[in-house]
Structures are given as C-alpha cells and as structure tokens.
C-alpha cells in the first residue's frame, strides 16, 4: 500500500523541551492509524505540524510522494489534510454555515453569499449522513453535534486525510460508537484517518495500525491486531502499569453530605441542576459520571459555595450550608480539588508558599489580627513539599514553573492539610500522565481508608468505575441513575449518561451496607 503521508525526521523544540525528536511516521492510504501516547508525549504537536499550524525545526513532510512545505493551515488544507481538534475550533456565536465557510467563503460581488453556502451545507450533510442544521448557532448545539460539524468542516474543504485529536473525550459511550461508525464510513469512501488518543481500548477497537509516542520519540509502529492493552501500556509508559488500582474493602459510616433537591442555573442563566439529590457517607467514594455539560460543574460549585442554589439544601454533617460562602465550607470540613487547576486551584504567579496559604489566609497560625505570618506559611510549605514529594527547586518559585503533576500534588497537599471530612474532587487527573494519575488515585484511596467521604466527579468512565463504591450518573442536571460500582458495566453507565433508563434502579439513599 502506498504511503499517503510520510513524516521524516521531524524535530520540534519549544523553550525548555523537545516536543518531537526525530520522528518518523508513515501513514498508508485508506487506513485508520492510531497515534498513542500519554499527555505531553508530543502527539498533538506532531499533528499540528502536519496541519501547518507549527513549522518543524527539522525534518520533511511528504504528501502523496510530493515534498511539501506548510506555512499555514491553508497549505495543508490545499493538500487535502483536515483536522478536528480536541478543543473545538468553532465560533460559538456564529452559525453552522458561518463556521463551515470561514476561510473559504462564497461571495456574490463584495457580499457574502450565505444562501448558496447553506445549500452546500445541506448537500454535504446529506451526502455523508451527518445531520446538521445550517442556521443553528454553535453555542446552542450539544457537544456531540458540534463534533460532527467539525468533521463536516474538514469535508467541506475536500479533506481526504482527517486528523482526529482525542475526539472521544467529550462523548458518551454510545456517541463514541457512532463516531466509530462515521470513521468506518469515511474509510470505506477512501479517506485516511489519523486518530490521536491516550486511551488504549480505542486503539484496539478501531485502528488498523498504531504508532506509540513517548517523550517526543517514536517507540514503535505496529499493526493493531493482536495487541493487548497491557502491551500497549508498556510501550506508552516504558514500564508495567497498574491498570486497576488496589481498592481495599469499604467500611461505611453515616452520611456526611446530604444534597436535597438542588436547583441551580449556569452562567448563561439556563437551568443546570434540576432537582439533584444524593448522599455520601464517611469512608465512601461516590463517583459522579456523565458527559461534561450535564450539570457536574455546577453541582461541584454549589457544593463548595461557589454558586448560588435557587432552591434545595446542602447539608454537611447535618449543618445547613446552602449558599454559604466558600470559607464556611472550608471551616466545616469540606475540601475541594477543583477541576481546573490553573484557573481555580492555583494562582500561577504566586509562589508555592503563597499558594499553600490560599484558603488558610484567615486561619491561625497564619493570621494574627491583620497580619499574615509568612514564616509560618513557609514552615507549612516545607512540610507539604516533603510529605507529598513535590518536585520543585524551592518553595519560593512561582507555581507556574511546576509540572502539571506537581501542581496537582500541591493542590492535593493543601486540601488534605485541611483535614476535610468530605473531599470533593473534580477531574483530579485531567491532563496528568500515567505516573501522576496513579499517585492521585492512591492518595484518594488512602483518604477513603482513613474514613473520609469522597465525591469524585470525572468524565473518565474508567476512573469512576475503578475508584467508586457507588456511581451516580448525571444527565441534564438530574441524577439519571445510581448504581453499585461492583454491578456497574460500561453499557449500563453509557445508557444512563445518554439519558436512558435501566430496569433496576437502586435507591439513592445510602450505600450498600456491609455485613
């Protein structure tokens, strides 16, 4: 089979890091080629080079036997390469048509010809069976549909070769299946697909061949058939990986967190929580599953005092903390590991010491009247850095300079220092490599065995299934169903995540009590 794309000796350096190191990649015409690697392995960088967003420092790109030079995505598009990015490149306030034609607009004289454009959108949508309403605004569309539009965008520009960057991150298991069908359909029509992911199962399900990247270098390229998750993991990380964390037997106590019939709105004023009720007991880890955008973010915010609830109650240890200030939640033993560590969890330009003070600035021994005793804060910082083995040149450097994993460790250290009875952890391993993820999981399990209650919100279904004692699925701002983790399957959860019902829904109050 001829190679449709060859990348030879690609090297790309950024300040302080070599993202791609002499990478050789060959893609066959008409295949689905997986690009596997951890976060930070260099997959997206490599594809950004192929798509013309970056220029390589060294190396060549050969498309259909022809040496090419891409100065911008325009050139890549001209050669038939299209890319669907991990974070959608769609303009929320524009319509589907406007997004599709941007950069390749149809004009009648000086004016835009939107009528013809809309016809073309319908045509394309029918041809590929990817339904899309030309006049709809992107921000009104669900995420799964938005992704379809991204694919249409590439097809509109006659993309023959499609690069999909982590497309399943925002999909329910059923939507992932639909995506696989779309990919198979495209392959059947002669398209070539490069599929970037860090999820082993996906490689094995859909890809013909796979190239594994680690630390910016190619570890190997193989046919996907006959590989196992374990062998892929070993190639990806370089050592044997614990794919399932050790979970000790649970010992539950009484409910620490009681959420009763919570209603709240999101930033746009639309209903986000539509009557959520749940409980978490001491020693229990409750996982909240669901595709992002179904109210999980708002739920976490209400449970930590960062968002107003319109009605309903939040009781911590029997005390009504509904709509109280975040400091009250801290004071009542609620710890919060925020989903976005750069925006909520850390002040990147503050030193580590100053970051450890966040949330403690009004507490003794740091606060004394109006004064703030930085000396005490430094003592704390040194202790925390040692306890959790946070890699940093000093405690005075800005948090910005730490790696993602170490930043998360710092946040964990700070939250654990609060000795919370209830820990709310939102997307705690997002963007972390396998080693850091393992660490976080171990820490959460440790807290659980020490009798803490944990509410874990994550869009990684495998993480939820691994760690939870009980799993709650959120859909459109409601608890769609609750399942005992031992009995949960991906099919069941996927169904709930998409708004379906399962026959035997377990009651919401209390976990399965151990004998």
């Amino acid at each position, binding site marked *: 089979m001829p190679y449709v794309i060859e990348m030879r000796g690609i090297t790309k350096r950024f300040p302080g890091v070599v993202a791609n190191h002499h990478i050789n990649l060959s893609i066959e015409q008409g295949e689905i080629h997986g690009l596997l690697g951890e976060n930070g392995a260099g997959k997206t960088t490599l594809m950004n080079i192929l798509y013309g967003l970056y220029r390589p420092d060294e190396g060549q790109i050969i498309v259909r036997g022809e040496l090419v030079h891409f100065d911008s995505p325009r050139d890549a598009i001209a050669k038939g390469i299209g890319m669907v990015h991990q974070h959608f490149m769609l303009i929320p306030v524009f319509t589907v048509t406007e997004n599709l034609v941007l950069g390749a607009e149809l004009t009648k004289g000086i004016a835009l010809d939107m009528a013809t454009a809309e016809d073309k959108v319908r045509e394309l949508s029918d041809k590929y069976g990817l339904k899309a309403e030309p006049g709809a605004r992107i921000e009104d569309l669900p995420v799964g549909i938005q992704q379809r539009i991204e694919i249409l965008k590439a097809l509109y520009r006659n993309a023959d070769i499609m690069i999909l960057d982590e497309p399943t991150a925002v999909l329910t298991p059923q939507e992932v299946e639909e995506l696989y069908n779309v990919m198979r359909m495209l392959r059947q029509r002669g398209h070539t697909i490069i599929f970037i992911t860090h999820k082993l199962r996906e490689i094995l399900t859909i890809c013909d061949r796979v190239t594994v990247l680690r630390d910016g270098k190619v570890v190997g390229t193989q046919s996907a058939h006959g590989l196992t998750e374990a062998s892929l993991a070993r190639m990806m990380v370089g050592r044997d990986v614990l794919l399932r964390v050790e979970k000790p037997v649970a010992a539950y106590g009484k409910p620490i967190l009681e959420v009763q019939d919570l209603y709240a709105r999101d*930033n746009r004023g639309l209903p986000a929580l539509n009557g959520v009720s749940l409980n978490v007991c001491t020693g229990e880890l409750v996982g909240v599953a669901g595709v992002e955008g179904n109210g999980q973010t708002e739920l976490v915010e209400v449970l*930590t005092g*960062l968002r107003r609830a319109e009605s309903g109650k939040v009781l911590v240890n029997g005390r009504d903390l509904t709509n109280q*200030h*975040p*400091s009250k939640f*801290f004071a009542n033993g609620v710890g*919060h590991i*925020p989903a976005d560590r750069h*925006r*909520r*969890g*850390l*002040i*990147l*330009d*503050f030193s580590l010491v*100053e970051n450890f*003070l*966040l*949330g403690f*600035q*009004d507490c003794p021994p740091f*606060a004394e009247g*109006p*004064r*703030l005793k*930085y000396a005490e804060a430094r003592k704390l910082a040194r202790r925390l850095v040692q306890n959790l083995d946070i890699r940093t040149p000093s405690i005075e450097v800005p948090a910005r300079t730490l790696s993602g994993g170490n930043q998360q460790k710092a946040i964990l250290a700070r939250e654990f220092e609060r000795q919370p009875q209830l820990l709310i952890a939102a997307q705690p391993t997002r963007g972390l490599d396998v080693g850091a993820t393992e660490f976080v999981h171990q820490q959460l399990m440790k807290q659980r065995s020490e009798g803490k209650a944990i509410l874990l919100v994550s869009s990684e279904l495998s993480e939820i299934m691994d760690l939870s004692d009980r799993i709650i699925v959120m859909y459109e701002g409601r608890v769609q169903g609750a399942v005992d983790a031992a009995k949960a399957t991906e099919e069941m959860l996927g169904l709930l995540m998409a708004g379906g019902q399962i026959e035997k829904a377990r009651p919401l109050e209390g976990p399965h009590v151990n004998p």
Partner: protein
Amino acid sequence: MSTREKVRHLLEQSGSLTLLLSLAAVLFALVAGAIMLVLTRHNPAVAYAALWKGAFGSRRGIGETLLSTTPLILGGLAVTIAFRCGLFNMGVEGQIALGGLGAAWAGYWIRGLPAYIHQPFALLVGVLLSVIWGAIPGYLKARFKMHEVITTIMLNYIAFNIDGWAVAVGGPMKDPGPLPASPVILATAKLPRILPQTRAHAGIFIALACVVLVWYLLFHTRLGYCIRAVGLNPTAAEYGGINVPRHLVATMAISGALGGLAGAVEVLGVHYRLFEAFSPGYGWDAIAVALLGMLHPVGTLLSALLFGALRSGSTLMQTVANISRDMVMVISGLVIFFIALTRPLGGAVHTSRGGQSGADLDA
C-alpha cells in the same frame, strides 16, 4: 541553553531583569525624547543639561524636585495598589482635584485649631472625599462589571467641573477677590517648609510614610494577600474563600484615598488655596510612575523621584531652552511605551475588559 538564555535566566532569578528593563525603558524614552527635540529644532544636549541642573543643580532645584516628587509618590502608590488588584485607576487626577478641594475647605473654613490638629484634619477631609470618588468606580465594577477605565475617566471630568464650579463666580468656595480661587488657608493648616529658601514641605514625609504603609499592607497583611490574589486570579481567590467584590471596592477606596492625599498635600503644602487644575497632570504621571516602579512601593518611590526631577527640571528647561513643560508628558508617555515593549502579555497585570479582568468570576 545558549549564553543569552543563561544570562536571561540568571537575571530573572535574581529579580533584576525587571529592574534592568525599567532602566532600559527610561533610557530609551530619553533617547526618543532627544530625537523628538532634534526634530522640533531644539538642542537636546542643552535641554537635558538644563533639566539636570534644574532638578539637582541648586538648593532651590532640589527643593522643587522634592516638591514634585511628593504627589507623584502618593499618586504612584494609588495606581500601584489598584494595579495589584487588577484594576486600572485612571482617576487619580480627579481624586487629586477632590482631595485638594476638601483639604482647602477644611483649611480656610475651620478656625481655632492648633496646627498639629488642623493639618491632619484637613488632610482627612480631603481623603474622605476622594475615598468616595475611588469607591464609586470600585462598586460599579464589583456589582455591575462596569469597566473602571471608563468610569474613573468620566469621574475625572466630573471632579474637574466640581472644582471649577466651587471656585467660579458664585461658587461656594470662591474667595471674594478677583481670582477664581478659594480663600487662602489658615496658617495653622499650612504644611511646614522643611528646606529653607525652597518650597519643599513636610508632605514628603507623609509620602514616605505611605510607601512604608503600602509595602507593609501588600506583603505582610491578610488584606494585602487578598488584594494580590484577586489581582492575579480572581477565580482562584474566590475558591480560596476571598470575597472578590468586597476587595475590589476596598482597593479602589484605598487607591482613591492615596490619590486624594496627593491633592490634599499639594494644596496644604504648595498652593495654600484651591483653584482649577492645580495639578499639572500628576495623575497621569502617576500611571507611568507605577508602571516604571514595577508595581512595587519601593520602585514607585524611585520612579516618582525620577519624574519629580523631570518636572522640576522642566521649568529651567523652559526658561533656558524654550521647551514647553509638556515635554514631561511626552517623556512620560514614551516611558510607558517602552515599558510596554518589554512586557509581553502584560507582565504582572492580567486584565482586559469584561472578559478576564479583576471581577470576572464566571467564565
């Protein structure tokens, strides 16, 4: 790493990179100013020599320099503390105007007080007015997300008009003489002169005290920690239990107070009465002073000294080389321009309008 990268890294670590960049900015501004002088058919050498001599060459010059430095320190501190909270206080000029109004009124209206009570009291009255003038934009921002650049500037114009009205014919503070000014303040309200045969006055000590106070506030108190946190990342500050809207208002109030103090000190120490536009643009210089001073109280002190020297030297420059005093404004603008050149992505100030500025808690 290349040698260049190594040197940069070393400088960054020791914190002197920003210092060097600030010095470079001043240098470039002076050079650009010289070019501008040449283009307008002046002799830069003569001009700058006059500038230097005017500022430091004589006892009187040094006195004038101290005199100009005082309101610049206070104004610079006002802008600095606002910036630290992610806020742009463009309203220092208006706060100066109102601070002067309050101080002047208390200075001539209240009788029978001994000097050691009258002066602080008059300063206080001025500060009270300007605290409100600062708190208003702070509140509008915290509650309504109205960008403080526009609100402070609008309030400037309103403040100028209030001052103008107060001393115009028929105005409440007009002195019954021919001048559009208030009556002269009582002797007990006047800040004492500290350097004989010059106009330098005790206000400089007030300014220096404020430098220490602001430094202590920012780096050793809870309030200062919260202010800085809100300025760098209001979302994280909120998460940490800090009441962001309240701190926005508080910071603008403090900033307004410092601005008003600058005006009050000017009236009680230099002019002894209120008249329109008694500030020759100190409020605008204050912005350059704060930026050049790297948003640190001590840096502000040093750069205020520089701009104070520029101002006092410019009088001699005008007499000797016939260059308008507005040259100072030109250099001021150039300094900010060159600082902007060296600080990609805004450096320590993470703000824009509406989207991610100091009060954005949502997106």
